[in-house]
């Protein structure tokens, strides 16, 4: 019985540890997305969207090996269906939403990324970057 109890606690602890680790990872991705959004807003908010050739340089957030390793880790996590195993089904949605924000951001065409997001948020109420 004692052994069962300790094994049970081990599993609970393991789940807690994985959950908190994933939450930290989520925070890193989320912060990156917010920082990109803020900088884009700052640089592009005064830009008239009819001017196509305007040049805006933003910091290269996606040249980030930590972020790359994190996404690699997430590939493994999703392959083993870890979210379901630890009973955190809502993580699927949380992560996918943040990752879509990163996918949309294009370093070579920051203005285009910004215009896309602005156009969407002008038409609709919510967007990935909001």
């Amino acid at each position: 019985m004692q052994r069962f109890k300790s094994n049970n606690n081990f599993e609970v602890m393991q789940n807690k540890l994985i959950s908190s680790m994933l939450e930290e990872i989520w925070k890193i991705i989320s912060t990156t997305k917010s920082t990109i959004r803020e900088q884009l807003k700052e640089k592009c908010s005064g830009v008239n969207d009819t001017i196509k050739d305007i040049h805006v340089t933003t910091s290269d957030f996606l040249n980030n090996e930590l972020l790359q390793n994190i996404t690699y880790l997430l590939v493994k996590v999703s392959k083993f269906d870890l979210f379901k195993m630890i009973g955190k089904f809502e993580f699927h949605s949380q992560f996918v939403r943040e990752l879509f924000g990163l996918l949309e951001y294009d370093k070579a065409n920051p203005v285009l990324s910004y215009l896309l997001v602005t156009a969407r948020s002008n038409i609709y109420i919510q967007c990935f970057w909001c």
Partner: protein
Amino acid sequence: MLAALTSVVENVTDLGKGLANIVGNTVFGAKKERKSQKMLNSETEDPMIINNPLMKGLLSLVLQIDVAVRGEEVSASATEIKIKTQIAEILLDMANQRQDFLVQNFLYWFDEILLKEGKRLFNSNPSEIKETLQKYINAQALSVIPPTMKTGIAEVDEKYAQKITSVNMFSGVKKKFSGMKSTTKKKGVKNKILQVTSFTNYSGNEEFPDLDRLIRDTSVVESRQKGMEALPSLLASFVNANNTKLEHYLLDVIMRSFSQKEELGVYLKQVDVLFEDEDIQVYNRIKTQVDGMRYLIERSEVRNKTFY
């Protein structure tokens, strides 16, 4: 500094073009001038020019200088491409999980029919079984077919939202289940079959949503999240992508998102339902071994990536 280097590269490229013209004129004569210019503009029509060692050497020299100058930039975009490719890979995995759920949901639906009609079907002949199943398919098939994802264009979504039609994807499935036990006793369908036209979760487990619903915030009211469709984002990323692998991944995500029904039909035809205990045991044993193998492969991949 980078601008200066870029202009140097451009000058070198121009010089390369000039040299290429001279080489082209010398080797092939003046008439070939247009052809060599074409080749430098990535037109690869004439294999003779491409295979010429002088031209090859010249082009690789220009390329090497270009890479040396832009090396840093290339490695930076390589990280970005890796991140995006991995994101696309995660999205593809989500599509796999969605399909797993859809197949599971279909089996639960079929199980529900068996529970309701099992006894009666047991005493029916094959044509009656077929008839009963056909009635269920007509009445409830739409409840196991996933809805089409939205395009993000309101007019298109409204136009096609209503036109959900039953597809012939069940033709193979019907064949699979038509060989069930039967006797010669005849009985009609007594119970009225409930008509279900919207997608229903029969599994009792949490539904694995499609990408459109995954990217929505569950804490925010759905009507406030109009425009949160995946397709515009995926298309924008595809247009911006300048890497073939990434483009393939993104196209794959788009295609799979919008062909869920067809994929479900294909998978259902492949489903092999195990009834015998012995078969189930063998399956479980093999599944454990395959899972172990998968775990080893993934772990070795991580190890290789980390240490080599």
